[in-house]
């Protein structure tokens, strides 16, 4: 499949259909891919596609990289299901010109979470990893272990039911058949079942690890404000230090700002240097949005976002009690 991907991209360059292609290349660490920017056909050999390709590349079309979008460059971008939903979101929110994008979909069975692998090796460094259909084989100094691949899936992928980009120009291989496209949230439900005090304690403990590096915000495609509320100083909304109240306000506000817009790609929790489960609250909000508005972000290019439109027969129980 990698061969097919490279061939397609080469063809796009040769037919002058793209000026730039954003995809994944092999990273400098085992089990790691890295974003690559391909400017010419000769460089297509850098592209890969496998279970390490976790970055959501849509992020490079907005924020500080906005200049890529504004010049009328034709950009090709390789996307999984969740990434592709980010592109739909961008089209709905007028952040991209659809006609300038060549969307290349790839079939995704989930990306792995390196932290889970490290738990399996008891913290011992993995020096090389090989992926097979059902399992992965990891080697380090003095050990070689076989692990069931599906046990290593990133939190975002465990309950994913949108593995294919909803909108694409080219699809490499065959789109994946999902058993159902009903969203399930057993992880959120488990959290909801806990009593309030336990949930609060868990949250404070977890978010106290936050060092406010903003990696989560910066890798999130839905977070593209030119001036983020945390950077404003007139008025200043939150304190700059990682004091727990300020930290919680940052995260909760960010979660609310991406409410109904989050595509649950998991980039936030994978980027976090302190291993906080940042996806959990985003998924909780997505569940709420689904229940209240029967809306899922990034699927339909013609559907208005849930929180940016009004529908007469929406649930109004919050008013009526």
């Amino acid at each position, binding site marked *: 499949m990698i061969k097919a991907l490279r061939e397609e991209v080469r063809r796009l360059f040769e037919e002058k259909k793209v000026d730039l292609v954003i995809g994944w290349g092999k990273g*400098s660490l085992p089990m*790691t891919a*890295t974003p690559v920017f391909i400017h010419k056909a000769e460089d297509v050999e850098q592209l890969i596609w496998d279970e390490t390709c976790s970055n959501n590349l849509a992020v490079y079309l907005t924020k*500080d990289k906005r200049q890529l979008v504004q010049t009328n460059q034709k950009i090709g971008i390789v996307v999984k299901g969740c990434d592709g939903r980010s592109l739909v979101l961008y089209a709905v929110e007028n952040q991209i010109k659809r006609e300038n994008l060549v969307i290349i979909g790839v079939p995704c069975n989930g990306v792995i979470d390196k932290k889970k692998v490290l738990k399996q090796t008891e*913290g011992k460094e993995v020096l090389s990893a090989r992926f097979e259909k059902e399992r992965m084989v990891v080697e380090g100094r003095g050990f070689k272990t076989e692990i069931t691949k599906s046990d290593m899936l990133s939190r975002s992928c465990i309950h994913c039911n949108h593995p294919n980009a909803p909108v694409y120009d080219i699809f490499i291989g065959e789109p994946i058949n999902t058993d159902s496209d009903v969203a399930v949230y057993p992880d959120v439900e488990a959290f909801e079942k806990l009593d309030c005090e336990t949930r609060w304690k868990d949250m404070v403990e977890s978010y106290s690890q936050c060092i406010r590096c903003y*990696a989560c915000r910066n890798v999130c495609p839905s977070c593209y404000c030119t001036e983020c509320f945390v950077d404003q100083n007139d008025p200043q909304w939150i304190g*700059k230090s990682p004091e727990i109240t300020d930290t919680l306000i940052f995260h909760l506000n960010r979660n609310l700002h991406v409410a109904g817009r989050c595509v649950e790609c998991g980039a936030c929790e994978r980027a976090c240097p302190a291993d906080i489960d940042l996806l959990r609250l985003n998924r909780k909000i997505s569940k709420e949005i689904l229940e209240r508005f029967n809306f899922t972000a990034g699927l339909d290019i013609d559907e208005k976002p849930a929180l940016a439109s009004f529908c007469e027969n929406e649930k109004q129980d919050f008013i009526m009690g």
Partner: protein
Amino acid sequence: MIKIEKSEFGTFIRDLSAEYKLFAPVGEGRQSAFREVSSADQMNTSIQMTQNSPKTVFLPQTEVLFEFNGDDIQSGEKAAKPMFFWGVRSCDARGMNLLDKVMGQSKQRPDDPAFQDPYWKARFDNAVILTLACHEPASTCFCHWTGGNPFSKEAGDLWAVETETAYLIEPLSEKGKDFVKTLSGYHTASDKDKQEIKTLKKQAESCLRPAVDAKILKEKLPKIWDDPLWDEVSAKCVNCSACAFICPTCYCFDIQDEGKKDKGKRFRTWDCCMFPIFTKEASGHNPRSLARERVRQRVMHKFNYFWETYGESLCTGCGRCIRVCPVNLDIRDVAKQLLEAASAV
């Protein structure tokens, strides 16, 4: 050289924590850090490197400079019980020395105590650092690029190495010598022990990957100041601060006031040159508005600017930035690319 058998280690630690505020590696994975301990079983003695460096203790992320109440100002300086750091790797020990050059001293005003950071000095000057030799450098370790070594004795007050059955300790500084004088009842290392050290050192060095000489990099970097390569190198950076916050030698901070005009506090908190608004001025002008300018700033500061002033690399090759970067921007690859471009000029 003193030998503390592993069977004696628990007592040694317990005694140490009575004399000092004892810090050691605690925890696992990405939440591991140097924290206060009172017994050996609270420590993580098998961790190769903590995610959070000792910087989190010496230059805490947030620190109150002073509190004010009307016109009365109370300094945030605290007189602390002397600290002892067990298990600091040489990259981190060197890192703390480098930080001391900026915070505890002043190159520009060497004789003026007004230009020394009192908060830093209260901690660093009163700390005893034990540098623990590194048996199994990770694949991301590159201390040898910057003149370091897993068994380096260049930094710290004491040096120790773990053998099969014991810890062997020797003093490095005057503070270290004074500390060793307080130890009694322990054996001294035998010749066999010293031989074992040689073997362990060789094994550790065999884990290291081919190096780039940071000195050559430092000389060549100014040649490619304007090279379009910086656009390529910075393209995938998302401008967060994960690398800087986790780095043992990054020290940039912001100063903010909180409270009201008559009661509140002034504190400092870590900041990062990678944030787009770091250099934004009140007029709106931003000297480093482009990602390429900020990535260049970080690389140049670590491998050139600091060297110009202090004669050594600010990067100690610990490799944490490589592990933590959400887009796998590997500073080693960047260094190699830059060196290649500079050699072509």
